[in-house]
């Protein structure tokens, strides 16, 4: 190999450029895309990428959040503030509306609403006629995601068929779909949790406060710290502890647990992320722990 080198981008610049390219492909190929924005750290990066892709113009898509009704209030407040700052349209569709319509039936009152998001998402896709949903999922999050395309085709029922995915070569993306079908586009597929934090640091992105260390009442359940909230009260016999924690992922209150940490700045979180011994979802997501294939199963049913 020669030692001569052409000037190349830093790894973050490369990842950013790739993500911008993917977002522009969605905007160029699809007639009615939407960007899924939850207020979580990955979708915060997505908004910065959208700014870099489309400013000084407006985003060629609205933002949408599928609200389980069980989100942390800090995250919802942040979501609304961020959309307003950007001056972009935010659509919120709520699981509670689907429940009222009867399209979501919970097994019991306290069942996690996380997996039911697919139903509300599919209803919203139909309502607005979206042909593409841009999401912040990453391949390093979970092993079913490692095999997902950047432009992932979903049929009329929102189903992902892992054995029948479109080949994806070079940076030639195929986001074509027939009416009623749908493309899920994942511009930050190639990012890791560490890349996300490095990008947040570099771009000085604001995040919901619960990503940073704070004191919170929790109950220990095995390796997990279960937050004590109105939705997830302590059970008789539980020992409630006040622990310094932060959230590594932010989702439904009923299925997202914080980790013990005193990292209260992005720099400290970066240092922790670089040396952690537990995967992002492993430490925090109860919904991924039911079986080895739980994410794959949810995705087949129309999950992000």
């Amino acid at each position, binding site marked *: *190999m020669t030692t*001569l080198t*052409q*000037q*190349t*981008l*830093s*790894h*973050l610049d490369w*990842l950013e*450029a*790739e993500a*911008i*390219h993917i977002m*522009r*492909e969605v*905007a*160029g190929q699809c007639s009615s895309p939407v960007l899924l924005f939850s207020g979580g750290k990955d979708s915060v990066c997505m908004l910065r990428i959208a*700014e*870099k*892709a*489309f*400013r*000084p113009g*407006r985003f060629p898509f609205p933002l949408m959040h599928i609200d389980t009704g069980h989100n942390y209030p800090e995250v919802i407040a942040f979501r609304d503030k961020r959309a307003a700052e950007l001056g972009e349209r935010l659509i919120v569709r709520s699981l509670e509306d689907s429940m009222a319509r009867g399209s979501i039936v919970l097994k019991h009152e306290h069942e996690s609403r996380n997996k039911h998001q697919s139903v509300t998402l599919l209803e919203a896709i139909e309502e607005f006629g979206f042909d593409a949903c841009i999401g912040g999922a990453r*391949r390093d999050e979970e092993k*079913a995601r*490692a*095999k997902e395309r950047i432009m992932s*085709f979903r049929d009329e029922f929102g189903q992902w068929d*892992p*054995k029948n*995915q*479109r*080949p*994806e*070569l*070079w*940076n*030639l993306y*195929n986001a*074509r*779909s*027939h009416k009623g*079908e749908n493309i899920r586009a994942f511009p930050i597929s*190639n990012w890791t949790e560490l*890349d996300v934090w*490095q990008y947040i640091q570099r771009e000085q992105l604001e995040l919901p406060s619960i990503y940073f260390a704070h004191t919170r009442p929790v109950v220990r359940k095995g390796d997990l710290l279960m937050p004590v909230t109105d939705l997830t009260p302590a059970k008789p016999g539980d020992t409630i502890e006040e622990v310094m924690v932060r959230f590594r992922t932010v989702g439904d209150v009923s299925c997202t647990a914080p980790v013990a940490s005193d990292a209260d700045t992005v720099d400290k979180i970066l*240092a*922790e992320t*670089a*040396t*952690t*011994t*537990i*995967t992002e979802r*492993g430490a925090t997501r109860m919904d991924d722990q039911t079986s*080895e*294939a739980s994410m*794959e199963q949810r995705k087949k049913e129309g999950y992000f």
Partner: protein
Amino acid sequence: MSALEHLPEIDNGLLRFLTCGSVDDGKSTLIGRLLFDSKTILADTLNAMEKTSARRGMTAVDLSLLTDGLQAEREQGITIDVAYRYFSTGTRKYIIADAPGHEQYTRNMVTAASTANLAIILVDARKGMLNQTRRHSTLAHLLGIPHLLVAINKMDLVDYDQATYENIKAEYLKFAHKMGLKDVRFIPLSALSGDMVVERGERMPWYEGPTLINILETAPAAHTERPEAFRFPVQFVCRPQDSANPELHDYRGFMGRVESGEIAVGDAVTVLPNGLSSRVKAIEIGGQKIERAIHEQSVTLLLDDEIDTSRGDMIVKSAEAPEAVKQIDANVCWMSETPMSPARTYLIRHTSREVKAKIAKIDYRLDINTMEHEPVDTLAMNDIARLTLKLAQPIFADPYRSNRATGAFIIIDESTNNTVGAGMIV
């Protein structure tokens, strides 16, 4: 290793590479070893692997479990699809494209190779060069991967014998010469024990070259070291006429990615297909001005003159415009279970342009084991063939050998919208 040492301080960019081989060659073990030694595998993943290994009756942790992503793969103990893995060392981030090695998965290897700048070709030291080795090398070469690394693995099973290594190397070099493979390197290693992967180990003092990780850390991350012509396919046009800011009423930004070469403010450019010329007035990222943009950067170009331009057009430097062609010769890999129907019209996506295409001629099918040319009437999945295609509209193309971005295209079946083929312009 402290946290700070683990963060890429000296940013040596990102290297995408491909591993070719099958489970039998120790490919999954090698990937597992790279992830394990670079501390990318975390405790809970390891726990899950231990449990699964035990359930399958294995005594040691099976590192190959890391690459089984899908339920069907875990059930059958095989790899079906390309998986992407990530790790980083102190200076660099890596994306591994891991493709299954069997012959019937040619299309997966082609897919994985399309974005790689280095290929690790695994050879089992006990078996030496196999048809599979030739096939993988041929495909890597066809897909234009600039750097090949032949990793002669399982040295532990041949007593770390230098002569075995040298013999395989000599045989491969003969093949490489015949094929015209230029940048080939060799390394002896044991993925199982880790020798020459991240650590040198003590059992192969006769090998004085760098370890695998050293090679990966220093390999050029770019696809080419040659200066390339500037190619800027327009993805999206930004016209914020309705903006509250009156200064933006005449704003017309051409958004895209610099697929090759570089561009600076003031450069003379030509817009294809209309052929009108202008100069670069400004280069922006997200509304912020920069002076120049390099290969792989996503930017917005503003021109001095008002030229009607839309998605699918291409901006190039006036002095180095590509050819506009309506007929192309290409090497095509067929990727669909539905065979090619030579009578049909397909859709071709080339850069940001989509055109209809008809198959004018199938010149031959290439037997990737023997390199022989065979006459055929149609193409089935995993076939690689030389075709002549007629296009309804011109595309602005370069030969794949000289430009990977403007030499590549995919074939789409409009009835299903599936991607059914991948092509490289000759």
